[in-house]
């Protein structure tokens, strides 16, 4: 009986001490981590839309979006995150579109763990630049041949699934922002 009491006492105090020190550390780091995240978002937006002078956080259909304002303070584009499954794990994308979500002005891959040398090519300018000016009135598409429509991009050879995932992730998010539900992909 005495032993049981000791077990409970030791375990409880060890856990309490650990929890206390962790909450202190996390209190110290919380702002820093949030700031890093913010900085990353802003950097991605700045590369995609250099003319954005001011970035305002907003919500549309329960999705966090960033309003991009030019030097006259006028809204000219939206930036938003889109994420979903790729070939090996989650792909996180920052997308900038016009205010009606009908034209993409650029994408930036924020996070991905695609196969090095194949799927990881979605991070390269050759692939990303294809999204500049892409028509997103309807769904954007991928093709393995030469793109023939303003809404098409060329999939990366040897990484069709990764290319397809990027397209699907963007389509899904744009559909959600437009307020369409269950858009077939």
């Amino acid at each position, binding site marked *: 009986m005495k032993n049981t009491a000791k077990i409970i006492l*030791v375990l409880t105090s060890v856990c309490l001490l650990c929890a206390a020190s962790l909450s202190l550390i996390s209190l110290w780091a919380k702002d820093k981590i949030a700031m890093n995240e913010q900085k990353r978002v802003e950097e991605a937006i700045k590369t995609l839309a250099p003319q954005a002078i001011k970035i305002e956080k907003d919500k549309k259909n329960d999705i966090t979006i960033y309003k991009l304002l030019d030097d006259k303070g006028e809204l000219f584009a939206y930036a938003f995150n889109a994420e979903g499954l790729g070939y090996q794990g989650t792909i996180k994308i920052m997308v900038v579109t016009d205010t009606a979500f009908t034209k993409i002005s650029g994408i930036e891959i924020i996070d991905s763990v695609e196969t090095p040398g194949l799927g990881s090519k979605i991070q390269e300018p050759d692939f990303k630049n294809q999204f500049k000016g892409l028509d997103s009135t309807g769904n954007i598409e991928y093709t393995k041949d030469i793109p023939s429509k303003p809404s098409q991009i060329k999939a990366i050879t040897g990484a069709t699934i990764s290319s397809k995932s990027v397209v699907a992730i963007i389509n899904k998010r744009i559909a959600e922002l437009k307020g369409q539900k269950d858009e077939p992909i």
Partner: protein
Amino acid sequence: MNQFKAGIWSDHPLLRQLLGMCSTLAVTTSLMNALFMSFGVFFVLVSSTIIVSLIKNIVPQEVRIAVYAVVIATFVTIIDIFFKANFPDASRALGPYVPLIIVNCIILGRCEAFASKNSPIASFVDALAMSIGYAWVLIILGSIRELLGSGAIAGLTIFGKGYDPLVVALLPAGAFIFLGFMVAAMNMIEDKK
């Protein structure tokens, strides 16, 4: 002194005991990743073995593993938060492998096999040696794989544009191949003695 040599060479955690393989194989795609991972393991191993050694007499036998696990998890979370706050890029590159130090057998192994039976100072020496042992293998693996797989070391291009990267070096298969060579070399050297 013997304890020190054991960790770095004769009782090497990776090449002799083959512990903590998962993170070793996963994070050594570049030298930078290897360095950050080594630092993480160093911090967790040294801090938790010292604590375990300090509290070894008041912890009842029945719950010792649970207590070690809580202590280790605490230090791992601390280093994870620290990386996230100060080195966001490295933290993203390492992904889940920093939190996974919690289940790294080297840490629990040293707590149970050494720190729970020895003084804090001896435990510190042991942990230091084991972390150095862990680090040098990670650094070599990370350098080789980054050099062959992307023609660079620590992000600095070495082989130039004409180099066609050996992609397999960056894939899991490459990790097994190069680690296999290192274990084989270790065995050869020890057999000759």
